[in-house]
């Protein structure tokens, strides 16, 4: 019986790995997709960032009378920024606001009437700064101006304190991490574990996506396609048992799924370089992250049963459907549900809710995350393996029942 499954598997594998188009879909695409996507996104992000910082923002200052000491300080600080300043009277306030709305102007600063105010007056100057959050330049100019004004404000306060004979030190209650030794970093996370966390959050999602995508690519054609072409009948009138047909087909779908998962895992490992570039500048080093052989074994123990589960799910749908098109229609909602599961586990914190550890697929995803973050517990690993295999066994059983049911196989 097993021999027949192997004969069937061999043919399906030959089909998969000698057809260039299929090899591209099943192996190359999951491998290069993420690196390409992230390098592209990273690059686009960097050039955009550069463009924004080098842009000369248009800033309008609106006031009726000027000449105060404090407002002069603000003006001076503005000149240090990469901005073009125009001034206007308060009567133009509305039209200037409209220009901010229209993105003709990045920033509008309204100065109160400040004629002759002095630093030593201890008055509070109420400034308004208007910007447009839908414009990248406007938001950037706003952040810059607010930060600069904060520095000016601090220096004014210091000056006032000195004026009344107090030390400006009373403004500072404590400092954080200012006096660390040069070779010391505040983040005491183990080497590579920051990378592990990043990978641990992303990886399970992509693995489940490609397990599914590849299963679909191969599995739908494997039974529904053969039904549609009438070749299934040809197979059934031979000496092979229906169980060996199901097993052979399942093994081939599983191989496709695992190839996809491993490819995408390698792909994400490559892509994480760009991911780091994008998400932080804290000098996390990709080369610090390595998966030990025990982690790789754990990975296999979780991913292979998960692949078995997902391929038997696809095969069940494929067996039930009359043709490939109907199969695709049926599998789409399931695919989306699995994607949502991936996203959900991506967003759970370090301690997932208890039910997630119980439910099949969910628990595999959660435990995969643990494995990448190098804090997986064997009990959880084995439990997720057991639930996946159990669920798969149920699905295979149903598929077999369908295979023996002519109403399903010869539905018209």
């Amino acid at each position, binding site marked *: 019986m097993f021999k*027949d499954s192997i*004969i*069937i598997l061999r*043919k399906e594998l030959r*089909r998969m790995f000698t*057809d260039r188009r299929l090899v591209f879909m099943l192996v190359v695409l999951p491998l290069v997709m993420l690196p390409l996507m992230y390098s592209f996104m990273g690059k686009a992000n960097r050039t955009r960032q550069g463009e924004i910082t080098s842009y000369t923002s248009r800033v309008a200052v609106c006031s009726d009378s000027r000449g105060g000491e404090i407002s002069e300080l603000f003006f001076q600080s503005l000149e240090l920024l990469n901005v073009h300043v125009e001034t206007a009277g308060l009567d133009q306030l509305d039209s200037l606001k409209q220009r901010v709305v229209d993105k003709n102007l990045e920033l509008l600063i309204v100065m109160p009437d400040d004629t002759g105010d002095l630093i030593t007056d201890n008055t509070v100057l109420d400034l308004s700064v208007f910007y447009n959050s839908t414009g990248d330049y406007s938001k950037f100019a706003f952040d810059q101006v607010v930060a600069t004004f904060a520095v000016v404000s601090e220096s004014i306060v210091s000056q006032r304190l000195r004026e009344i004979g107090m030390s400006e030190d009373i403004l500072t209650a404590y400092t954080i991490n200012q006096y660390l030794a040069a070779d010391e970093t505040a983040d005491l996370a183990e080497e590579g574990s920051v990378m592990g966390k990043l990978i641990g959050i992303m990886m399970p999602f992509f693995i489940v996506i490609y397990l599914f995508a590849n299963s679909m690519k191969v599995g739908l054609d494997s039974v529904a396609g053969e039904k549609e*072409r*009438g*070749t299934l*009948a*040809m*197979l*059934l*009138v*031979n*000496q*092979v*048992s229906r169980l060996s047909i199901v097993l052979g087909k399942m093994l081939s779908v599983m191989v496709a799924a695992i190839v996809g998962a491993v490819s995408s895992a390698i792909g994400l490992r490559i892509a994480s370089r760009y991911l780091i570039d994008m998400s932080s500048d804290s000098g996390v080093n990709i080369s610090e992250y390595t998966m030990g052989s025990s982690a790789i074994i754990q990975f296999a123990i979780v991913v292979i049963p998960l692949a078995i589960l997902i391929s038997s799910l696809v095969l069940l749908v494929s067996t039930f459907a009359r043709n490939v098109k109907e199969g695709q229609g049926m599998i789409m909602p399931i695919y989306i549900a699995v994607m949502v599961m991936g996203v959900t586990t991506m967003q759970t914190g370090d301690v997932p809710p208890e039910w997630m550890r119980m439910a099949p697929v969910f628990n595999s995803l959660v435990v995969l995350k643990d494995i990448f973050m190098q804090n997986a517990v064997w009990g959880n690993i084995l439990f997720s393996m057991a639930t996946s295999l159990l669920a798969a066994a149920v699905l295979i059983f149903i598929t077999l029942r369908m295979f023996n049911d*002519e109403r399903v*196989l*010869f539905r018209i």
Partner: protein
Amino acid sequence: MLRVEKLCKEFRNGRGRSAKTVKAVNNLSFQCRSGEIYGLLGPNGAGKTTTLRCLSTLIKPSSGNAWIDKYNVLEHGQMFRSKIGFLTSDMKLDGYFTPDYMMNWFGQLNKMQESQIEQQKKRLFSDLQMTDFIHKKIDELSTGMKQKTAVAISLIHDPEVIIFDEPTNGLDIVTSKAVTDFLVSRAESGKTVIISTHNMTIAEKLCHRFGILVDGELKEEGSLSDIIQGSSWDCLEDVFFSYILPGGDHV
């Protein structure tokens, strides 16, 4: 020899109360001897495909049975299958492989030795004049070549009983003749052949005996002379029309 006994097949269409039972095959009995080509004739929807599917164990008869020697479809599925070669006309082989590869593959599935496969391949390829294209992808073959390939594949295990559902459907007269000549040669070598068709011309030339199936029931059975003798008809077509055309003798 193939013996069909009181074969019935019902389909339930729809669900629940609106479900309707369709009697696709009703109490069908006939025999088909070795060395003989039996033609199952009937209009669309007569139940030909359903009958042949029952005979190939793809679907289970609702009642009745069919026998080859001491084996029957209900109890000895696997053994029965080893004795038949089955082909449907609505089949499209996977175009990615070559006829040669598919033959080897089906040979293995039928648990044949490599030498047996080689021998059988050689014979079928030359009988069906396939040698020019056995190493081409099936995708690249013409309809006729594909049908020859399908015929060869279904007979790789040299079965005693050949069950072909509309084997000449969609073929030109040349390929059609190649296939029918091949079937004649098989019958001459002692095989039992049963085909379904609605092409009366081919049937008259090819088959030794006929069964005319209308609405799942066998209306006439026997050789051409059996059927025509003592009646006003002089060819199969007339018999056929008398059952299905309005105003026909039997309508």
